């Protein structure tokens, strides 16, 4: 293993400039001097702050699947749906591929992200390694761009406006928990800087 000082020299992933990174404080960020790309933000101390958000996310996502999401009533007929049905209804209407995509973007990928950040946060809090830690760190940032919780929330708001005049629309518990989930998930991920996480994982083995 190489020494600590050498591992702080990195190549900017956007312009390939060699940069010697200084040690950062929790609130400091380091941008590439040539292209402006955000190289690293904060330190392990800041990354540890992700723990409460990771726990909240892990509680809020299952809750969002349990309760009604929205209900719609007109002419004496009512229809209630839950989060899972947004994907399932597409399947029932014959759009199988679209149904799988939606399920992936709003439930499957986010679950994967939550499990990964939970594992990383647990490891950081108790300062010990867990099986699958490297796998979690490897895929969490890649999978994250396919987790579309916040985009879905905007989609729900747009839908609400579209149909508000057609009939009575009621908002269920799950919509609120999913909204909260979208917020804590973003907070947790921004706390976990990629470089900080990997340097932490490397320090565990020494």
């Amino acid at each position: 293993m190489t020494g600590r000082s050498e591992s702080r020299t990195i190549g900017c992933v956007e312009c390939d400039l060699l940069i010697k990174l200084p040690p950062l404080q929790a609130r400091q960020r380091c941008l590439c001097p040539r292209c402006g790309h955000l190289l690293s933000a904060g330190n392990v101390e800041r990354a540890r702050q992700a723990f409460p958000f990771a726990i909240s996310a892990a509680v809020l996502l299952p809750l969002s699947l349990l309760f009604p999401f929205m209900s719609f009533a007109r002419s004496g007929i009512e229809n209630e749906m839950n989060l899972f049905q947004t994907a399932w209804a597409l399947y029932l209407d014959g759009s199988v591929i679209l149904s799988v995509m939606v399920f992936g973007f709003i439930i499957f990928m986010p679950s994967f992200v939550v499990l990964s950040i939970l594992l990383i946060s647990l490891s950081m809090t108790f300062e010990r390694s867990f099986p699958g830690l490297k796998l979690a760190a490897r895929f969490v940032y890649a999978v994250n761009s396919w987790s579309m919780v916040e985009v879905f929330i905007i989609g729900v708001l747009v839908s609400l406006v579209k149909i508000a005049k057609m009939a009575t629309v009621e908002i269920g518990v799950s919509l609120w928990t999913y909204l909260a989930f979208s917020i804590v998930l973003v907070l947790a991920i921004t706390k976990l800087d990629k470089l900080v996480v990997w340097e932490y994982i490397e320090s565990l083995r020494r």
Partner: protein
Amino acid sequence: MTGSQNTTAAAAGFASCHTCYLLVSSDEGRCPRCHSGVHVRMPNSLHRTMALLVTAIILYVPANVLPIMSTTVMGNPVDNTIMGGVITLWKMGSYPIAAIIFVASVFVPLAKMVSLTVLCWAAKYGRSDPKKQAVLYRVTEYLGKWSMIDVFVVAVLVALIKLGDVLSFYPGLAALTFAGVVILTMTAAANFDPRLIWDKAEARVDERMGKDE
């Protein structure tokens, strides 16, 4: 390492790991820290980006022509296209929502396709200001998933509004092709290696300096 001001990792014989940012000697194929594959530059980056981009452009046509959703009101089916939905919302007086849908579903996908073309052009033939291209790349990557809004609107409405013949919404083929456009442009952006722009800009500077001498 000698501290010349603009030394790139590649010029110094290193490749930086895309997964964990470790600097690895460029003849090593695998990162010792996270075990993912390491390349000095993404292999065939421009070819892959262009191939995905062209596919996205082709799919963009049915996404706009075919109905994204069909509505049954009192037994009468009506088809809605993306642009039709924007116009309906505008006429209803929901201007902000109409604007959101227009930006997310029409403007952003088009802008992404144009900007990826510009980026590929810049990486291949070089442009004067790589810093501008770097910003363009970052914006393109960030906007990626936000075009999916309309697909989620369809998913929510189709699940929620199922009152038999009174009022029911069904998904249209354009929802699938449009989701395809978004996924393809996201993958195209992910396959684009922004370092190629800087390589090209550097090569052009060297060329000019060579001529001056």
